[in-house]
């Protein structure tokens, strides 16, 4: 961990005492949040660790006792475990790519002046307010249903055979649905950031004869880098544990084509009320989350410090 620049060396002099006082105050002010989160993350974590080493099935009390690493063994040797990790990565990566990529372009677009801009902006960000279950039901039944869906009707209208999205391209379709929910968030954040871009800077660039593309690459993008990190960080937190959308649309299938880690834990353990197995899954997921956190958050933090 690199040092925080403003931190003065602690010495036994008035300044040092002042610094210690500041630390104490800082600690006191932070402690409610830290204690609460410690409690929230440590207590369930310890319980989860304990259960993950035991045979504990809610619906079968005859299974009892110490399980050793059995629960972990069954999860890690599950042929679908790697697939679920891949799917998790694709879901997170795909949605992030769409929301950051498309989000940046849309932010630039909605920053331009045009008639009814205020209303158009509100329409674009609206999907962010939709709860995940509703979004999934809406896309599955009203939009993409191969018989009743609006999209299918449109395809039939132009003489095409409707695509059965959720069984043919389950993961891509999920990425699409989730991106629909989260793209608006990216647009909102990036649009805000773009608005604070110095007009003079842009004007100067235009005077220098820079084209739209050059302006975008040389001025807009660097300016947005911090906002982009914010989007990536907040979205990653939510995308890693996506559950409702999968359970409503594909239930992880067909096969395991759209099963992510959270859903694998659900279908292998929770569905048969195997608390031991689910706990082992929880521990593995925490490890995965921390690996992601270590990589991502460090990069993000560096970007945010500047």
């Amino acid at each position: 961990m690199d040092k925080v620049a403003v931190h003065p060396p602690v010495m036994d002099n008035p300044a040092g005492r002042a610094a210690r006082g500041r630390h104490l105050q800082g600690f006191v002010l932070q402690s409610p949040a830290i204690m609460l989160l410690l409690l929230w993350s440590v207590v369930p974590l310890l319980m989860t660790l304990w259960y993950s080493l035991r045979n504990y099935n809610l619906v079968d009390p005859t299974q009892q006792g110490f399980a050793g690493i059995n629960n972990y063994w069954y999860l890690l040797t599950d042929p679908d475990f790697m697939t679920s990790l891949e799917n998790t990565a694709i879901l997170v990566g795909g949605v992030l790519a769409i929301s950051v990529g498309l989000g940046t372009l849309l932010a630039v677009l909605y920053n331009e002046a045009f008639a009814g801009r205020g209303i158009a902006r509100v329409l674009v960000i609206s999907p962010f307010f939709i709860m995940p279950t509703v979004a999934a039901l809406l896309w599955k039944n009203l939009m993409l249903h191969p018989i009743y869906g609006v999209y299918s009707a449109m395809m039939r209208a132009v003489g095409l055979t409707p695509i059965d999205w959720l069984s043919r391209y389950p993961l891509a379709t999920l990425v699409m649905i989730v991106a629909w929910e989260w793209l608006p968030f990216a647009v909102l954040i990036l649009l805000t950031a773009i608005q604070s871009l110095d007009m003079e800077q842009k004007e100067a660039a235009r005077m220098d004869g820079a084209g739209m593309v050059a302006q975008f690459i040389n001025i807009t993008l660097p300016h947005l880098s911090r906002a982009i990190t914010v989007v990536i960080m907040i979205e990653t937190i939510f995308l890693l544990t996506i559950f409702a959308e999968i359970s409503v649309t594909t239930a992880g299938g067909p096969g395991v084509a759209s099963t992510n880690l959270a859903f694998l834990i659900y279908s292998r353990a929770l569905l048969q009320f195997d608390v031991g197995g689910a706990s082992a899954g929880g521990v593995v997921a925490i490890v995965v989350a921390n690996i992601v956190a270590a990589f991502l958050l460090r990069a993000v933090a560096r970007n945010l410090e500047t």
Partner: protein
Amino acid sequence: MARTSTRLRHAAITVLAWGIALWMFFPILWMFLTGFKSEPDALSTPPHFLFHPTLSSYQDVFARENYWHFATNSVVISVMATLVALLVSIPAAYAMAFLPGPRTRMTLLWMLSTRMLPSVGVLVPIYLLARATGLLDSRTGLIVIYMLTNLPITVWMLYTFFREVPVAILEAGRMDGATRWQEVTQVLMPLALPGIASTGLLSLILCWNETFWSLNLTSSIAAPLTTFIASFSSPEGLFFAKLSAASTLAVAPIMVFGWVSQKQLVRGLTFGAVK
């Protein structure tokens, strides 16, 4: 010549921007419209864009479930969880921004990483804890959990807002003999208010839409709108109109609220995290 190309460009932008906006909003609009269809109309192929609107689906939904009970729970739980989260995270973010120690950044990262653990893995431990503390199916239980799950995000967002406040202003206040309390309430808060409001709005939206814990920890007394929807999804027989009406009812309050406060959200964000 140049004028024509500018006008062309303007027209292209207008068409593109509106096209995308309508495409993004279309599913919501369609859901809204379907709620006013009769069930046979909702299932017709190809779908009808013109139909005789009827309120029968809404009447059915209201006859089946006590919508206001769920909606009140959603409001109370989201608002309370957000308020408590702000109350806990403002001092923490203040300390991190103005009294940073050697472990501040590490603490922040750790907080955010607690948010990445999948709920399915810890359902049973949490359920047992909730049962032991009598918090099953209580608003307090959900408020506590929502507060905790949103805490990392609110602390972090407030931290970025507070960091934007020039230390010199705070120090000037201190020179005038202001206590720490006055410094926070009279100098910092007014400056950071837009940022605090944005943080609160975001937290409110996230609480409203949380699905896993609300479904698993509540049954009737404290059940919010996410549970309301679970009683309409995949019922026996496929009722698209009723489902759409119920969905519209579940998302309408937060959506209208979002539309109204959208300017505020943006204003706050400009101030801090993304500037």
